[in-house]
């Protein structure tokens, strides 16, 4: 295996009194789709923007293609493409003009017509930026990120705020990048996005990487437990659910109970017996296979979307 394409070592970044990064470290190999998964404010964007050369770390090392993003200037920028989380283009700039404009800044650039076709923007080529929908703007942002045929692509929350259909379209595009052997660093707070697209995921919380591995490894790290979520007619306050057969832990959330069980059938039988004995009633029961969400809950004690 060659040298990592992205190398991050002990990154620290403060914004006034706010500690955004507190020693983030990871490496990304050539051709890998690597995800930074975490809630808003976890430090994902700060990490990516340091790697894009847009922010200066207070401490630590960041290297992309062996280059220092902050100091390598044009040589570095020729190697990367990026979709920023918050950015815009002039309202009266046409779609085709935007791609052609940015293409002209690079030594190597992709064909505009090919990009328009690939990102389904052919019919919108003469439309102004202000006339595009959110999904079309995001597809344009992706097209512009690839305008220089980059070696490394940074995608900072590329599907945030988009409807499910557009999100799936973006997933297809990222899978295409994967097939093209591009190295992709993706930030997201969507579990399914990380599970579907990433070869490896780093779970980030409060400016730290708290777990790192393939989605499968992370799921197994949550002890391969099945999650059983139940709603009951009367609340249980004596912790009886945590003592049921097969249950390793139980948490109350939003008026419901989530149990992690190593033996789901036995747990359900024990639950029904217990409720009968207590004169309580089962209102709903849902079972979930081990997921990244479970790994996240186990690691942080809360859900991603509760932030």
């Amino acid at each position: 295996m060659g040298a990592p394409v992205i190398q991050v070592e002990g990154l620290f970044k403060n914004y006034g009194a706010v500690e955004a990064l507190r020693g983030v470290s990871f490496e990304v190999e050539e051709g890998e789709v690597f995800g930074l998964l975490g809630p808003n404010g976890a430090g994902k964007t700060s990490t990516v923007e340091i790697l894009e050369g847009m922010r200066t770390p207070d401490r630590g090392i960041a290297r992309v293609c062996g280059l220092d993003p902050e100091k390598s200037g044009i040589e570095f920028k020729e190697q990367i493409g990026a979709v920023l989380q918050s950015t815009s283009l002039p309202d009266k700039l046409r779609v085709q003009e935007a791609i052609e404009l940015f293409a002209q800044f690079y030594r190597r650039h992709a064909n505009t017509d090919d990009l328009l076709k690939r990102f389904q923007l052919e019919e919108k080529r003469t439309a102004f930026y202000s006339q595009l929908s959110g999904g079309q703007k995001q597809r344009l942002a992706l097209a512009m990120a690839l305008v220089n045929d980059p070696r490394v692509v940074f995608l900072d929350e590329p599907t945030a705020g988009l409807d499910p259909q557009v999100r799936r379209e973006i997933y297809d595009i990222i899978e295409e990048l994967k097939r093209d052997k591009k190295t992709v660093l993706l930030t997201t707070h969507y579990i399914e996005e990380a599970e579907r697209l990433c070869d490896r995921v780093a779970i980030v919380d409060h400016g730290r990487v708290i777990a790192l591995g393939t989605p499968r490894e992370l799921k197994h790290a949550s002890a391969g437990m099945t999650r059983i979520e139940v709603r009951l007619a009367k609340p249980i306050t004596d912790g009886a659910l945590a003592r049921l057969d097969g249950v390793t832990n139980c948490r109350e959330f939003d008026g419901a109970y989530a149990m992690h069980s190593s033996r789901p059938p036995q747990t359900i039988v024990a639950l029904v017996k217990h409720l009968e004995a207590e004169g309580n009633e089962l209102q709903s029961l849902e079972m979930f296979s081990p997921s990244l969400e479970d790994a996240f809950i186990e690691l942080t004690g809360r859900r991603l979307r509760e932030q």
Partner: protein
Amino acid sequence: MNANALTNTWTLTKIRMRLAMRNRTFLFFSLFMPLGFLFFFILVFARTDAGWTAYILGAVLTMTVMGSFWGLSVQLVTFREQGILRRFRLAPLGAGPMLASSIVSNYLMTMPTIAIEILVCRFAFHMTSWGNLWAVLLLVTFGSVAFSSFGLIVASVTNTMQETQIINQLIWTAFLFLSGATIPLARFPGWIQRVSLFLPATYLATGLEAATTDLAVAGEIITDVIALSIGILVAFEISRRLFRWEPEAKVSPRAKLWVLAAMIPFLLFGIYENVAGTRLERIQRDYRILQQYESQSAPAQNR
């Protein structure tokens, strides 16, 4: 600036011009408003007097050129606040081409307005001579670049659009009313005339008014061009150093002191003109000549 930077500057210049042509606000402020001023001032103040028409042309050209200052600062702050600049930051571009392209495109977009204003005065208002067109071209060119650079400094040292508008308003008012661009400087009390010598706008206004009335001599125009050129060099370098791509990147109060550096050339020129210069005498002389023309032509018109 290397060849790559020059190519990028030209690429950005072309797209900026295209965007400006699609912007109705830009067309209003850069074309229709200056022409409105021209018609208003000539119809109210000059009427049929060719000398005063030429003088007013100089004043309106000054206002048109100074408009760069307002337009560029607002545009740059808008681009920064909307996060447009940060998208450009990802590309292999420096601050230089971004700033230079806004200056060049503004200049190229200003020139048609300048030409229309001159043609309107010559043919619609019967200005008897073209004035000193070479001097006009030189002053418009250097003036446009200088005032664009001043605008970029304002954009660099202000953190919000509101702040930009307030500072623009203050500077613009001083430039407009104390430089001779609206009220002839010769009509002001002596102390105001002396204060006006510290303003960059005065060098542009008095130069252009002398050029359109054909009362300027080469030495005087060269002095004006030198003053504006030094202003350009200092202002462009300061705006390049203070340039910010990010909306949240606030400028420190200390960095704002750099603005004072942009004023140094005009402070020195002001001191020189107040102590040893002849600019105020020249302004008085030109004004008297125009009054003489007016009094000579008035009886002729009455006959």
